[in-house]
């Protein structure tokens, strides 16, 4: 027997003494749901793809990302990242720049020409997707993955829906949009552009479709009754942005007033500036705190010379004079008229007061329930009529592109369950990895990396992209800021801190296991796990 230096006698090892019998609680490894994943409307496994990116595995990271969302380069630009608002890293310094890393991965994939996974084995089922916005594109992608045949129709000449006709190019360059759409259609999607569906039942019947997904969006700008002289130029923001996207911008003059306080109002005002308006003024009836537009968009618009009249409503528009009534907020925060008026010179008025859905294709169908102007759906996204599903802005929703992507995925899974005649099962959600599960001592201090912004002066005249991308080095740094909430990232702490050597390090997918023969149940490993991936459970005695 080979013995260590200077050991001459056989000794009994203390391993004969199974101290595991002292234990009243045992540690077990768990996966908790990271708050970013929990908050992602598209159901991305953000912590999972950041984990891959942390070691420079960008392609693996991208593949993990597109399991849920086929549009990362787009989302990395237009998503309002609720993930970052939920990120636990704020307890240490600032949220992880998830959106910036997503964009880096999306751009890298386009650069390298990585393609989406191949379509699944053919099921012989045919699905009609009406509307090629984010919901329709996402549904088409997930349906192809599941092996269903997809016809994707859209009334516009090009695909993308609001991504193309609503979001200006300085936020989403068209080359990026085209690249990510092409990747989806290349999976064998039958595309019919310039085709408006007038009667969904007829369309379904004639095409022999087994299921239909309605993702027609909300394309109709809301109108309000504002007295306006014949000569006054009034246009709704949706039409305005659509015409700009078609490279046929309307002549709005030099003084453009935009009425409304949402992101569309800001897009319209910023676009007007770029088209040469010297004054781009937003009129909004409440104050900045109450503005529904996202704060960073407001910040950028103001930086580009857009101005805002807070607490004002438009009274009438005549002879290049716009009359505003001043408002004040009552105790409940609602605006009420003050009876005070003021006037502004204006060449045109753009109405950005919300959008309605054009559901005329449902006329004659009595089964699908429409309430509050949108199609009502179950958790599977199915309407009251078997095989007819709806999502995106046409269904009850927060009306963001990311929500639409999530709807598309869910609808595809709902359709799949319907077509296979099985129950729809949504995966069980783990317990949330809240900040109190973390031991933040272990994380190195590292402030967040911001993306570069285009200089202000260049933003006033052209449609160049405003926000730049991260370099590889910065993206790697940013990914490594992730705390890996609730999911082991192999820091070896449990393995190191056990006074009884009762953690076995295996590496690979299993990572570590407990040796319950010796674990006394002290709980140090749980306390010192940075990311809350171990929990104590009582022994059944």
């Amino acid at each position, binding site marked *: 027997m080979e013995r260590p230096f200077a050991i001459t006698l056989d000794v009994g090892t203390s391993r004969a003494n199974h101290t595991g019998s002292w234990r009243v609680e045992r540690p077990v490894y768990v996966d908790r749901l990271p708050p970013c994943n929990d908050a992602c409307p598209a159901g991305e496994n953000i912590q999972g793809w950041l984990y891959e990116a942390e070691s420079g595995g960008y392609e693996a990271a991208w593949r993990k990302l597109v399991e849920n969302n086929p549009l990362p380069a787009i989302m990395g630009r237009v998503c309002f990242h609720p993930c970052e608002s939920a990120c636990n890293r704020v307890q240490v310094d600032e949220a992880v720049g998830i959106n910036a890393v997503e964009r880096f991965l999306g751009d890298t994939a386009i650069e390298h020409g990585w393609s989406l996974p191949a379509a699944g084995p053919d099921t012989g089922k045919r699905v009609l997707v009406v509307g090629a916005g984010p919901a329709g594109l996402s549904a088409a992608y997930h349906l192809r993955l599941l092996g269903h045949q997809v016809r994707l129709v859209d009334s516009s000449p090009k695909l993308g829906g609001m991504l193309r006709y609503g979001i200006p190019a300085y936020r989403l360059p068209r080359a990026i949009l085209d690249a990510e759409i092409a990747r989806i259609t290349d999976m064998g999607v039958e595309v019919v552009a310039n085709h408006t569906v007038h009667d969904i039942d007829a369309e379904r019947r004639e095409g022999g479709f087994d299921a239909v997904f309605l993702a027609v969006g909300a394309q109709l700008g809301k109108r309000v009754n504002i007295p306006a002289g014949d000569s006054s130029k009034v246009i709704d923001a949706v039409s305005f942005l659509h015409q700009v996207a078609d490279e046929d911008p309307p002549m709005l003059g030099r003084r453009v007033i935009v009425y409304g306080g949402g992101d569309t109002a800001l897009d319209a005002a910023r676009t007007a500036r770029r088209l040469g308006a010297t004054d781009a003024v937003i009129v909004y009836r409440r104050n900045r705190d109450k503005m529904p537009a996202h704060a960073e968009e407001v910040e950028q618009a103001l930086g580009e010379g857009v101005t805002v009249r807070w607490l004002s409503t438009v009274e009438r528009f005549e002879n290049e004079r716009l009359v505003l009534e001043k408002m004040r907020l009552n105790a409940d925060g609602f605006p009420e008229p003050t009876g005070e008026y003021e006037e502004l010179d204006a060449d045109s008025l753009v109405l950005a007061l919300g959008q309605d859905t054009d559901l005329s294709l449902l006329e004659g169908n009595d089964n699908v329930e429409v309430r509050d102007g949108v199609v009502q759906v179950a958790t599977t996204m199915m309407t009251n009529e078997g095989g007819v599903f709806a999502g995106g802005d046409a269904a009850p929703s927060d009306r963001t592109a990311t929500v639409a992507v999530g709807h598309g995925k869910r609808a595809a899974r709902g359709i799949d369950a319907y077509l296979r005649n099985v129950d729809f099962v949504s995966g069980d959600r783990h317990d949330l990895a809240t900040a109190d599960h973390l031991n933040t001592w272990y994380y190195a201090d590292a402030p967040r990396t911001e993306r570069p912004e285009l200089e202000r002066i260049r933003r006033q005249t052209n449609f160049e992209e405003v926000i730049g991308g991260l370099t590889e080095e910065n993206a790697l740094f940013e990914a490594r800021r992730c705390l890996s909430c609730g999911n082991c990232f192999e820091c070896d702490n449990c393995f190191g801190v056990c006074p009884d*050597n009762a953690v076995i390090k295996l590496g690979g997918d299993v990572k570590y296991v407990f040796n319950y023969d010796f674990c006394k149940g002290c709980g140090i490993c749980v306390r010192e796990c940075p990311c809350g991936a171990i929990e104590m459970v009582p022994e059944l005695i």
Partner: protein
Amino acid sequence: MSEQRVHFYQVGSFAVGNRLLSADDRTVQSSPHRTNSIDSGHRACQGCGEALGARYALDAAMRATNGQLLAVNATGCLEVFSTPYPETSWRIPWLHSLFGNAPAVATGVAAAMRVKGRSDVRVIGQAGDGGTVDIGFGTLSGMFERNDDVLFICYDNEGYMNTGVQRSAATPPAARTATTDVVGAEPGNGFGQGKDLPRIAMAHDIPYVATATVADLHDLERKVERAMSFRGARYLHVFVPCPLGWGSASNDTIHLARLAKETGLFPVFEAEHGVVTNVSRIRRLAPVEEYLKLQRRYAHLFGAKGRPDIVARLQAIADANIARYGLAPERGELDNREDA
């Protein structure tokens, strides 16, 4: 700036390991091939800081000496829980004699190795705080004075834990032990007594003296490695919380060691030839209450009949340490003490 960025590895140098680091930059403890100098099955209490500290230190020494290591142990918990006849947890050559003579025995072993021409074999002497600062102090001071080629490690759990939590000269003021009851004007251990052994060791002008805790593994391992790079007498004082003796939760062992350092109550530093060469500055400064409240040995200081005056005196000790060693955090905004 860019250089700093590529060197950022999520948990930096705080965690035991890190899959993003090269094997060389990880701790000894992160390796599946570590010695495990003390094996499983030992009879230390749940969450024992001493078992942990000893494995950390000896595994690091095993790596530093390429496995050519002998350890001499004084009587105390570490000896008793590791070797109940006929079993042993030791996976390194190990020798036990008496409570008070470990430094002298270690000196003798080192001399024997020298005589045998095996100066590649290095010797570690180790003891609890009682064995070091009290009964073993005379032989330890002699070992220092003769500059014998031994690294002596004290595992300081601030009392005679093995025999039932009696006071030692390393027991802090106000702490309750079996022999310092919470009676009288100064309940618990008295102020102004005790010995600060790292400073006494420095006064011997030996090549290397350092303190460490089980809460900063990278630091502890680095110090063991540094110690093994010297010949002559060296001293390492490791702070090891004791859940049983302190009345703390078994899962708080490392957390308490961290707080002892972050409050300033236990200064972490190193010195060469009697001069302090390096201190571990506080990263997230904490008030002493945060540390004291987690331990029942200080329970009499809190609650309705609490003694805020005594807590203030303990805070003053921490503040004096911070001033003496320059432990204040680098950035003021990290100061999260309420009174700061």
